């Protein structure tokens, strides 16, 4: 065969992955989806864009590119595992591939059984495998584990085994994906030896790697992929230095950038935290200010006096802190210096911005007190406090029935603190009892 002949020819190859916006992987979902929403929307991901490449027989082509640039996809298309969406691909001869750190392995079978199975898939007769078995095992360095099920193997062991089988199969084209990333130094040296042997035998190799130095050492040509497009293709011997430099420069840059990014991220987090703390503090200060400003104190004729205002919690203890949904009892103790007819007791709740939330009183609740004289108590009870987390003020007051005369008014003198109870609600001021349902 003439050396000039192209053994792999790729023309304007494009591979698109369709990523559906919504996963519809069941028949039921497809039917429901088709009826209610029509066609599925796909996101088009261009794994490979308009790539043209040719590899001559006996050449070693290295493919370099960042993660997600389409290297493995390209190998899979050459291995005809994936079908191209546009363009054409021509591969002459038998292809053996080593993809994604391992190959067609069955996890439950032992290493030996896998060797036979995989060799068979690659077209090796059982007899030939028998002969090569020892070589395969010793190359992979798994002699002790030959009868161990593969699921107990480490990734490195599996990759070594896979490569070891692949290299023992006679083929025209070898597709090799990142084999050197998994092995230790000893194994890497062995691999490089294998490549040298393949070179001697005039085999064609397409080799994917992250390591530009290595690619330069092994390959005749290097294809650079970025975002699925072929950025450039260079002959190694001519520009080896330049590429080398660029590659190491790029690598350096990449690491530097990633370190910087991490730092920025950390800094951002720190700032964010500080900002939050500051805001919290500001709020706290404002609250206190407001409290001072809005605290209007007492007024009224004092014909009936509010002697004390106290809040009690569920267990009957005095408290100023409650949970949302808890019962609260506010006891207004009064002292009437003379007999007063038909007084009205009331309470007003405010949020910490001074907004009026609720103003219940005895008349609204139909508690008609005919008269008061001397000491007594009026009790206001809520079974389940609907207020959400925050600080609230309340006023307590005694008026006459028509609210024209004020006997005693403690305006926003009392503070209660609410913390979240059973509810997770946290927007707004109150929790309105409710129920959510969903219908299609």
């Amino acid at each position, binding site marked *: 065969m003439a050396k000039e002949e192209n053994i792999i020819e790729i023309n304007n190859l494009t591979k698109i992955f369709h990523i559906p916006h919504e996963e519809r992987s*069941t*028949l039921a979902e497809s039917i429901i989806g088709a009826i209610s929403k029509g066609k599925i929307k796909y996101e088009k991901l261009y794994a490979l864009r308009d790539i043209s490449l040719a590899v001559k027989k006996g050449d070693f082509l290295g493919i370099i590119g960042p993660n997600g640039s389409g290297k493995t996809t390209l190998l*899979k298309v050459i291995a*005809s595992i994936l*079908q191209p969406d546009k363009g054409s691909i021509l591969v002459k001869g038998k292809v053996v591939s080593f993809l994604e750190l391992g190959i067609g392995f069955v996890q439950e079978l032992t290493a030996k059984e896998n060797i*036979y*199975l995989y060799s068979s898939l690659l*077209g090796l007769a059982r007899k030939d495998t028998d002969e090569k078995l020892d070589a395969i095992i010793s190359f992979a360095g798994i002699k002790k584990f030959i009868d161990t099920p593969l699921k107990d193997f480490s990734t490195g062991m599996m990759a070594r085994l896979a490569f070891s089988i692949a290299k023992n199969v006679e083929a025209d084209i070898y597709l090799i994906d990142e084999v050197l990333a998994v092995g230790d130094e000893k194994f890497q040296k062995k691999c490089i030896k294998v490549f040298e042997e393949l070179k001697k035998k005039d085999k064609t190799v397409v080799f994917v790697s992250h390591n530009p130095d290595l690619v330069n050492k092994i390959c005749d040509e290097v294809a650079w992929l970025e975002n699925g497009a072929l950025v450039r293709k260079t002959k190694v011997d001519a520009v080896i230095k330049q590429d080398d430099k660029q590659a190491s420069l790029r690598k350096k840059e990449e690491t530097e950038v990633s370190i910087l990014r991490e730092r920025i991220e950390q800094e951002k987090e720190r700032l964010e935290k500080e900002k939050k703390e500051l805001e919290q503090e500001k709020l706290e200060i404002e609250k206190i200010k407001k409290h001072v400003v809005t605290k209007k104190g007492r007024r009224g004729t004092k014909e009936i006096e509010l002697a004390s205002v106290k809040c009690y919690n569920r267990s009957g203890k005095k408290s100023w802190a409650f949970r949302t949904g808890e019962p609260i009892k506010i006891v207004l103790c009064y002292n009437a210096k003379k007999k007063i007819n038909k007084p009205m007791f009331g309470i007003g709740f405010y949020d910490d911005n001074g907004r009026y939330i609720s103003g219940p009183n005895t008349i609204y609740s139909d508690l008609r007190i005919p008269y008061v004289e001397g000491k007594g108590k009026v009790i206001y009870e809520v079974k389940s406090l609907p207020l959400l987390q925050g600080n609230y003020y309340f006023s307590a007051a005694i008026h006459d029935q028509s609210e024209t005369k004020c006997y005693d008014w403690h305006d926003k003198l009392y503070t209660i603190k609410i913390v979240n109870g059973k509810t997770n609600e946290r927007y707004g001021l109150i929790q309105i009892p409710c129920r959510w349902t969903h219908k299609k």
Partner: protein
Amino acid sequence: MKASLSNNLRIVKDLTIVDFKLKYNRSVLGFFWSLLKPLLMLATLYIVFHHLIKLDVPHYELFLLIGIILWGFFTEATSYSMSALNRNTNLIRKTNLNKRLIIISTNISAFISLMLNLIIFFFFVIIFEAGFSWHLVLFAVLLAELFLFALGMSFILSALYPRFRDLSHIWDVLMQVGFWVTPIIYPISFIPKQFHNWYILNPLARIIEDSRNALIFHKLPPVDFSYLKHVSITFIICVGALIIGVIIFSKKSKKFAEQI
């Protein structure tokens, strides 16, 4: 490529062996249980339908067993094929193996189980003195037909499964319904004549019924127009399923590496 047929045959053989090993979890006992399953079912159904419901069919134990075995093969082959692609993700995503071979080997492995079950059946034939006759040849033809149908359905189901993951549940339910819709515990003559044209659209009906005539009753069915019609319908459905299956599978299998 040259020598691809012998190569493919070898791959099918190896895959079948793997399939068999995995199915029975490399244990003799696992295999033993798989033989016990139809017998256990036989015992249950026999007690219920022979002793409790008093179905009067000669050689009811053999009658039931052959139905259970053939139906069991069909269920196993199709259900197992449906998940075969998922069990072999590595083969699909990392090699350019002809995916048809996976389905074929799964069916062959189910067929081997069927053969082993048939050995037990013939053992029963000897015990219950039903005898053998030249009609066995007809049974071989029926088996071939059944295999083609199972293979065809396996292709269709496994081609659609990566896209519709609930297919396995749907198929499970259909198989349960099918067990009663197919003449397994009762003869086809229990079905009123006017429904026969519909009933026969299930190829298993004709295959199981004819297998019984050949193996147990040693007689040819009455060869008349309606019988010939039914036989041809069964044959057309079996071959049709295979052709449709191969077409759908070839079309869908190009995308398997992306979907699985």
